[in-house]
């Protein structure tokens, strides 16, 4: 790696870090500055970065990634119950448990590629979900979900004499209870670390190998390159990211339910990654942020709010617009999501990041005349999800 790339990456990292840490300030005007939502941005950002390592870099579309999220959550809550309310063991256990789980599943599923891989992962995730609901109830507490209770042993906390509170304890780190803004900053730091790791992976020979697998696995095989360890490593790393995200979900809100593993949750992370731009570094995080933002803001809209929004228009027009937009907000925000998603896949398969690139290259072309190189890059990036 030459020095300029390294310097660019450092600048990139610095900007990213700054942007993440100042999120409470610059998201304020958008009405997104409350800790619960900010935590979600960071957590699902991590989830999407991890998914992108598998789908965006390596080209394997997994429809069962939520299983790892769920495993991470359960492991983290068990760590709270058995060991300590400290967040560090919880995220370590969550990540490791999801990692081990993904070794097993990845070993089996990666025997196939393409749509078969998607269906195999879907099958495993559905199996985990169904089992978590039925037979594994002693571990998962079934439909109620796994929760903390006052009778939990919490061995380490007892041994080190952590202060007893009257009610249920909350996950802590360095003495801070991890709800509200401390919780967000905890997740944000991990998001930055996760992003840094993904950046390093993408710049490393390992990342190059993953990209090569995506573009032509057969040719990789012909050059005497065993792709299996690389795909498995990519799958496991991606599973560990999901486990970390799941553990963080448990850290910021210590309960875990099986619905986290349902295939709709797997579908959601696919949407996030595609929306932002699969294969790009920062795209998945943006996608996760946009979807979670829409979920929170749009689903809170209701008819009265719509009338307020369109109040500046003449009455008749206002009513018409409210009638048209009504099904898209509130309960129906999934409809908006579906429509946006379809439009993105149809017209902008590279996601929002491709949109940014197209706009930038259009501006570049108009200011500096015809630029053939920008065009060819655009062509090459047209099918990143291939």
């Amino acid at each position, binding site marked *: 790696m030459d020095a300029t790339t390294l310097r660019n990456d450092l600048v990139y990292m610095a900007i990213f870090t700054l942007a993440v840490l100042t999120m409470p300030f610059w998201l304020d005007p958008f009405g997104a500055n409350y800790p619960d939502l900010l935590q979600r941005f960071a957590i699902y950002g991590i989830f999407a970065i991890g998914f992108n390592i598998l789908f965006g870099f390596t080209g394997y*579309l997994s429809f069962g990634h939520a299983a790892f999220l769920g495993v991470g959550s359960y492991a983290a809550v068990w760590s709270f119950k058995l060991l300590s309310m400290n967040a560090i063991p919880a995220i370590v256990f969550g990540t490791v448990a999801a990692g081990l789980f993904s070794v097993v599943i990845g070993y089996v599923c990666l025997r196939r590629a393409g749509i*078969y891989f998607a*269906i195999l992962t879907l099958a495993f995730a559905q199996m985990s979900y169904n089992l978590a609901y*039925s037979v594994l109830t002693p571990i998962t507490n079934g439909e109620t979900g796994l929760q903390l209770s006052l009778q939990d042993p919490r061995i380490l906390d007892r041994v080190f004499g952590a202060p007893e509170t009257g009610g249920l304890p909350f996950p802590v780190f360095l003495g801070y209870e991890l709800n509200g803004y401390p919780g967000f900053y905890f997740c944000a730091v991990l998001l930055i670390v996760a992003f840094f790791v993904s950046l390093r992976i993408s710049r490393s020979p390992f990342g190059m190998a993953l990209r090569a697998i995506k573009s032509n696995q057969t040719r990789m095989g012909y050059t005497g390159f065993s792709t299996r360890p690389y795909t498995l490593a990519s799958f496991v790393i991606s599973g560990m990211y999901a486990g970390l995200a799941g553990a963080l979900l448990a850290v910021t809100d210590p309960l875990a339910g099986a619905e986290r593993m349902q*295939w709709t949750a797997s579908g959601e992370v696919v949407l996030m990654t595609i929306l932002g731009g699969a294969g790009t570094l920062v795209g998945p995080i943006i996608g996760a942020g946009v979807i979670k933002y829409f979920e929170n803001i749009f689903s809170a809209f209701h008819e009265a709010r719509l009338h307020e929004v369109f109040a500046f228009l003449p009455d008749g027009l206002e009513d018409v617009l409210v009638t048209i937009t009504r099904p898209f907000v509130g309960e*129906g925000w999934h409809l908006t999501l579906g429509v946006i*998603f379809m439009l993105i896949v149809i017209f902008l398969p590279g996601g929002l990041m491709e949109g940014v690139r197209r706009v930038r290259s259009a501006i570049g072309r108009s200011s500096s005349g015809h630029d053939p190189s920008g065009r060819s890059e655009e062509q090459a990036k047209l*099918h990143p999800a291939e």
Partner: protein
Amino acid sequence: MDAILLQVLNGLDKGGAYALIALGLTLVFGTLGVVNFAHGALFMLGAFVAVVVNRLLQIETVKLDETKLTPWGTPTEIRTPVVQDWLGDFGAFLVQYSVPLSILAAIPVMLLVGWVMERGLIRFFYRRPHAEQILVTFGLAIVLQEIIKAFFGANPIPLTAPDTMSGSANVGEWFGLGAGLAYPWWRLVYLGFSLALVALVLGFLQFTTYGMVVRAGMQDRQTVGFLGINIERRFTVVFGIAAVVAGVAGVMYTPIVPPNYHMGMDFLVLSFVVVVVGGMGSVTGAVLAGFLLGILQSFASMNEVKQVLPGIDQVIIYLIAVIVLLVRPRGLMGQRGVMES
């Protein structure tokens, strides 16, 4: 013995639904080469055609009968469906048989839906990667189910089978196994219906010239194109047929499970597994795998089996899919080289 027969029957009617959805799914894949994640939504749309027909037929007039009083002292309301007012006994018959009659409405509606879907969206995705086909149809499925949710709400809407076909059939007596074995009539009707529909589609593909050309196109669309046949148009027709099959399967399923907006997705996931087990692009494979998995699932939910292998009923279908994909990647009846990579 009774128990076994009952489980086979149970499996067959569920298997019938799997088979009908999987049939369309694999047909679309085999002809257009498109992986259609919105196929379950077509099943759901069909079920809601039945709901709409039922609601239209149920539009009532309310008359107050002053001679009879309710326990609260108010006049009794006599509600008669408008069609019954107009058409007398024939109207009553229409109301009674609204579910099977909805098929007549579902066929044109689903043909139209299928045609719009294929010409309006799927056609542009023939040459795009499978991942993008999956994603765009997945988005379409979300949109369709959300639209249905906006109009009909999130709660399941119960529909009833005609009186003559509700209640239970004494299946045990037919087979000389004692009178204890009863089975709902409507499920038997559904089983017969799905078998007939499967036979119809397979017959169409196997024994008509049109079907022969379609099969030839599945083998080698280019050569068929060179022979001067507009194979694209025939494939669009096939898509329409697949949509109709899924739709009427949904119509007939409504008395068994009350339709709700996410029923399509629930069935889609399983139907995909069925298609993969049967072999991608193989029509007979999909049908056989549908019935097979339905039966296996109902056997796995027997108490005796559950005691030996707890939780097996929850995972059996997926487990079979995993085993089949690993041991025989192209599925039970799949052809060599179809999506085998």
